[in-house]
C-alpha cells in the first residue's frame, strides 16, 4: 500500500472515531516501515485537526471529539513502543493537568477543553471532577505538568480555584505552573482577583491562551 494511502487511512480512522481501525492502520504503517512519528504527524494529527475544525465551526460536538481522541490513543498504543525503541519523541506543546475543583461534579466543559487541547498537540492529564487542591498539585507534580486548568461551574465552587493557587503559593510552586481557570460563572475579573494566569471563555479561547502562555 502507498505511504500516502496509509496516512489517509490513519486520518480517516481518527475522523470516524474508529479505535479498532486506527490500531489496524497503525500496525500497517509499522509493517510498511513508515517512521512512526511521520504516521502521527501526517495521519493521526491530521485527523484530529479535521475534527477540531469541525468542532470549532459547529459541525461536530463532544462525542465526535471524544471518539476521535480515543481512536488517536488506540493508534498510539501501537506506535509508542516503536517511537521509544527509535529513541524519538512526539513533539508536544506542553502538558496540561485538567480538573474540576472540589465540590464541582460538572465535567462537560472540562472534557471538551481536554480533548481540544489534545487535538492541538498538548499532552493532557484529565484528573476528573471534585478534586481538592493538594490532590491537583500532587498529580501535576507527578505528571511534570506545565500548566493546570481548573474548571468550576458553580459560584460556590469558584473559591476552590483560588485555593489551588493559594496552595501553590504556600508550597513555593506557583512559578512552576501556568494556571488557567474557566467555567460558566468564571470571568476575567475573577481570574485576575485570584491571581490566575488567564481565563478562557470557551475551549477555543483556552487553547489559544495556553498556547501563548506555554510558548512565552
Amino acid at each position, binding site marked *: 500500500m502507498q505511504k500516502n494511502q496509509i496516512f489517509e487511512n490513519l486520518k480517516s480512522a481518527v475522523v470516524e472515531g474508529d479505535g479498532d481501525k486506527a490500531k489496524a492502520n497503525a500496525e500497517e504503517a509499522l509493517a510498511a516501515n513508515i517512521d512512526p512519528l511521520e504516521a502521527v504527524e501526517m495521519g493521526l494529527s491530521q485527523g484530529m485537526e479535521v475534527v477540531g475544525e469541525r468542532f470549532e465551526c459547529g459541525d461536530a*460536538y463532544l462525542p465526535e471529539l471524544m471518539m476521535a481522541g480515543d481512536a488517536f490513543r488506540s493508534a498510539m498504543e501501537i506506535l509508542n513502543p516503536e517511537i521509544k525503541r527509535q529513541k524519538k519523541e512526539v513533539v508536544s506543546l506542553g502538558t496540561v493537568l485538567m480538573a474540576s475543583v472540589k465540590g464541582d461534579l460538572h465535567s462537560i466543559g472540562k472534557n471538551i477543553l481536554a480533548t481540544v487541547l489534545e487535538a492541538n498537540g498538548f499532552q493532557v492529564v484529565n484528573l476528573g471532577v471534585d478534586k481538592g487542591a493538594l490532590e491537583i498539585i500532587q498529580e501535576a507534580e507527578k505528571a511534570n505538568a506545565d500548566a493546570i486548568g481548573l474548571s468550576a461551574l458553580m459560584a460556590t465552587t469558584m473559591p*476552590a480555584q483560588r485555593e489551588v493557587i493559594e496552595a501553590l503559593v504556600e508550597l513555593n510552586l506557583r512559578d512552576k505552573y501556568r494556571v488557567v481557570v474557566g467555567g460558566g460563572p468564571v470571568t476575567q475579573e475573577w481570574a485576575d482577583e485570584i491571581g490566575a494566569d488567564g481565563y478562557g471563555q470557551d475551549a477555543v479561547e483556552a487553547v489559544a491562551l495556553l498556547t501563548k502562555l506555554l510558548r512565552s
Partner: protein
Amino acid sequence: MIDFLDVCERAETGPLMTERDFELKVFIPTLREVVKDHGIRYDSDTPVPSDDAAADAVHQAAVDFLARVGVYCQDTNRIIQFTEEEIQDAVKTAPGECLTGEGKDASVFRVRQPDDGTMARCHVNWGTIHSSQEMAINIMATNVAHPEAKAISISSVTNTVRGMRVKAGSPLEMIAGIRAVRVARDACRRAGRPGFPMMNLVPAAAAAVTTIGASGPQFGARPTDGWIIGIISEHKIDYGAMNKVAYLLNWGANIGCQGAPSLGGYCGGAPGTAVVNTAYFLLGLVAMKANYHLCFPIHFRHGCCSTRDVLWVVSTSSQAGSRNIPIPVIWLGYMAAGVNTKMYFYEAAAYLLAATTSGADAVKMPTPAKGVKIDASTPMETKFGIEMVKAASRLNRQQANELVIKLLEKYEPQIPTAPEGDRYQDCYDVKTGKPGEGYLRLYEEVKEELGAIGIPFE
C-alpha cells in the same frame, strides 16, 4: 414497580464500569443508535414543530435509551439499570400533578398538552445572586406579589457570609442555605403570600447536608415546597443526590428532578439532546421518585437556551413529555442577553412561545445574562414573561413557529456577542422599587414591536 430501595440496591450491584467507559462505550454509541433507529431529525426551519407522531417517536426513543443505558452511580462506579417494563410502570403510575404551597397560596401544579389553550403556570424569580440581602428581598417580594405568579425560585441572596465567600460543602454553604430559605419566606410574607411554594430548594446547595439542614420547618420550609435534585450531566447520579431522595421520601416532601442536558456535550446535536431531555423526565420518575421536574436544555458553547437548535429541543421534548409522561415540568430558560436590552425580550419571547405552545406545564420567567451576573434581574422581566405566557397561551404551535422564526431573525446573529445588560440598581430606583424611565420606555417599545409582528398581547 420498583421502589427507592431497589434503586439503592442496584447502585451497589449493577454492572461495574469506569466513568469514561460509560461515556464512550455505553452513553454515546447507544444514543447515536437510538436517534438513528427512531428516525429523530432536527429541522432548523421549524424550531417549533407541530408533528405529534415525531414527538411520540422522541418519547419512544427516550424509553428505549433509558432501558438500554440506565444511570451511572459515581460513588459505586456501577450502572443502575431499569427494564422497559419498569419504566412503563413508572409512567402509568406517575402522579400527573403536584400539590404545592399552603393555605390560600396552595395550588395544584398540573400537566398541560401542546396547543392546550390554558395558561401555563408562571414560576417567578431566579436562583441568582444579589449584592445585598435587602435587594434580594425586595425583588423576590415584588415578583411573588404578581397575581399570576404561582410559585417561586428563591434567590441565593448573596455569595458571601460576613465577607467570606460561600464555598461548596463548607459550613458557610449551610449558613447561606438556611439564610436563603429564611429570607425567601420573609419575602413571601412581605408580599402577603406566606404559604407561597418555593420550588427550587435549596439554591446553590452542592452538598446534600446543606439541602437537608436548610429544610428544617423552623427556617420556613415545608413539605409542600419543592426540592430540586439534579442529574449530573449526563445520565449520572451520586450518593449525595440519593441521600436527598431518601430524606425527602421519608418527609413526604415534593421531589423535583432537575435535568440540564448540554447540546453539544455528550448528547451531541439537537436530536440526541431532545431524547436525553425526555429520558430525564422518566429517570426522575423511576430513580428519584420525583413528582415534578425542572429542566433546561442548554447550548454548550453559548451557555443559553435561546439558540435555534435548543428551542427545537425545548419544543420537541416538551411535546414528547406532555403527550406521554404525566409529570408536571417547569421549563427554565437562560437568555444570552441581560436586563434592559431589547435582545433579552426577543429571546424571552421566543423561548416562552416555544415552551408554552408545546405543552410546558410551568415556565419560569427567563433568566437574564445567562444567570451568572450579580444583580442582573428585575421585576420587569417577570412582568414581561407573564404577559408573554398569556399571549402564547392563545396560540398554537404552528403560529408560534412563525413568530419564533421572526424573533430569531432579530437576535440569532448576536448570540455570541450578546450584551450583558444592566444591574437592578442601574435601571430601577432601589429605594422605591420602581423601574427607571429608560427601562420603561424600552419595555413599551419592545411590546409595541412584538405586537406588530403578531404576538397577541392583551
